């Protein structure tokens, strides 16, 4: 039943997600939903990394690297599409670089290391004025150009970025789905559950961890690039903000670590709830739901974050599905 349920739910969700632009949503709401989808991408990519046992408190670094790269490339006159792709690539490289630290750090130390990593990039963006524009950042980032084979007006309406955000989210979910049923997923799970034991079975843990970082960083970088494209500015304090580290952490843990769709659904729900229900009434406190969700998750989920990590995926892996759900 759970499997059918998930498929049905996702089909309905997909249909719903195609709907807003077609029904003539107000551009502001379209922008909100697009941002929610971006957070879905960020949360799913966070979850992908956590699936390999690595807890990040620094996804803002990957997001911001993608954002700055996309901004710089498109400002230099190259195609904004190329800029997005390069944003993903730089996000992946930046994540792989800190992923190397997982050779020596794990758990809380790695979490702190990734937190410091974000601060390092924020500091660089502040100080490397010639390239990054310093504290004032970069403005006037050009919009995405129309593609001949894509019947979307990307320059003038929010519809284009909406569909792009949706495409990114579906892409990261599809990639995660593929990983769960491949040797990658097997290696990630083994490294997460018992790194030492895995190494005795021929698994060299570090490359797998770095790969998980790179994949996660790639999608975060893509999201960062699109975000910058939507807001048209990039500033160190805005994009290397811990907001972009906390939110994916909250959404993924709240939505269910190791589940395929949980983080994305939690991202949509939490983000839209806070923006639509709280922001209009108590603007200063609209981040309250994230803070409270994080506190609740930290206190009341059995075994906390670490205890949750090894939870099995809700999807049957490699055809061994029948008894996976009952136990645990």
């Amino acid at each position, binding site marked *: 039943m759970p499997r059918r349920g998930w498929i049905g739910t996702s089909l309905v969700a997909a249909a719903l997600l195609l709907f807003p632009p077609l029904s003539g949503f107000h551009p502001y709401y379209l922008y909100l939903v697009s941002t929610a989808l971006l957070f879905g991408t960020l949360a799913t990519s966070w979850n992908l990394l956590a699936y390999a046992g690595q807890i990040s408190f620094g996804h803002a670094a990957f997001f911001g690297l993608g954002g700055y790269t996309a901004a710089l490339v498109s400002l230099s006159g190259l195609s904004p599409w190329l800029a997005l792709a390069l944003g993903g690539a730089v996000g992946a490289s930046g994540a792989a670089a800190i992923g190397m630290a997982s050779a020596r750090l794990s758990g809380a130390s790695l979490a702190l290391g990734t937190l410091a990593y974000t601060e390092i990039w924020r500091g660089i963006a502040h100080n490397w004025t010639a390239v990054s524009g310093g504290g004032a950042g970069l403005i006037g980032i050009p919009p995405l150009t129309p593609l001949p084979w894509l019947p979307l007006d990307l320059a003038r309406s929010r519809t284009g970025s909406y569909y792009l955000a949706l495409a990114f989210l579906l892409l990261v979910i599809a990639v995660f789905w593929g990983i769960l049923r491949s*040797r990658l997923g*097997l*290696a990630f*799970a*083994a490294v997460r*559950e*018992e790194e*030492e*034991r*895995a*190494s*005795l*079975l*021929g*698994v*060299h843990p570090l490359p797998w961890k770095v790969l998980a970082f790179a994949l996660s960083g790639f999608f975060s970088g893509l999201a960062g690039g699109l975000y910058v494209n939507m807001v048209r500015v990039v500033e160190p304090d805005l994009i290397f903000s811990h907001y972009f580290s906390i939110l994916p952490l909250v959404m993924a843990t709240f939505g269910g670590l190791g589940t395929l769709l949980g983080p994305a659904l939690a991202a949509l729900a939490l983000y839209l709830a806070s923006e639509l229900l709280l922001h209009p009434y108590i603007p200063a406190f609209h981040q309250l739901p994230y803070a409270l969700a994080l506190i609740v998750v930290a206190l009341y989920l059995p075994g906390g974050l670490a205890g949750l990590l*090894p*939870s*099995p995926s809700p999807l049957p*892996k*490699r055809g*061994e*599905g*029948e*008894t*996976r759900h009952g*136990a*645990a």
Partner: protein
Amino acid sequence: MALLEGQGLSMAFGGLLALRGVDIAVEERQVVGLLGPNGSGKTTLFNILSGLLHPTAGEIWFGGTRVTNLRPWQISRLGIGRTFQIARPFVHSTVFDNVLVGVTFRSRDHVSRGEDRRREAERLLATVGLAGKASALAHTLSLGERKRLELAMALSTRPTLLLLDELASGLSPKGREEVVRFYGQLKERGLTIFAIEHSFRVLARVADRLLVLDQGAIVADGRPEQVLGSPRVVTAYLGEEE
């Protein structure tokens, strides 16, 4: 040259000398038993041989290659497999996946097809009598089943040398009989076995040679009947037999 050789192996944990210059040699296709009281350094020796610990002094050769200070995955790929005294499966994964890990990552050539790997994992589970548990999560297994899973995981990398840490401990007499039978089967398959057991009776029946460790040093080495008669072993063990 023996398949596995260790010379002058020492291991210090802070001020504690867990091993003091141990020499060992395990000949190909032999079953060598390792006995010793609690805390005598048996598991520590296995941890060194499998690459989890680096010895403070000494050298190890396996199949003529120097493997001292190689990392666990390198040693595993060269053909040494091991079990743990207290089973350490991937508790939140299925029994099947636990075995599939070694089958999939034991060598760097990734040519094998997924289908072949799956079939091999199924065969391994059948060998240890866990075929019916393939899709159970490892943490739901009983103690005996965990021991079987340990063995299947150790075999999953197709080792030539197996380091078995107290396979028979904690099992019922019936379970021990089965372990003795496993030892026979593994030997027939041409595997070399280095086995820690607490029970003389188990080792006396399966081992070609016995080593006795006491306080980090080898105190006896020889054929089972010689070793078990030696006065040093009797003092080391005084009343230790289960």
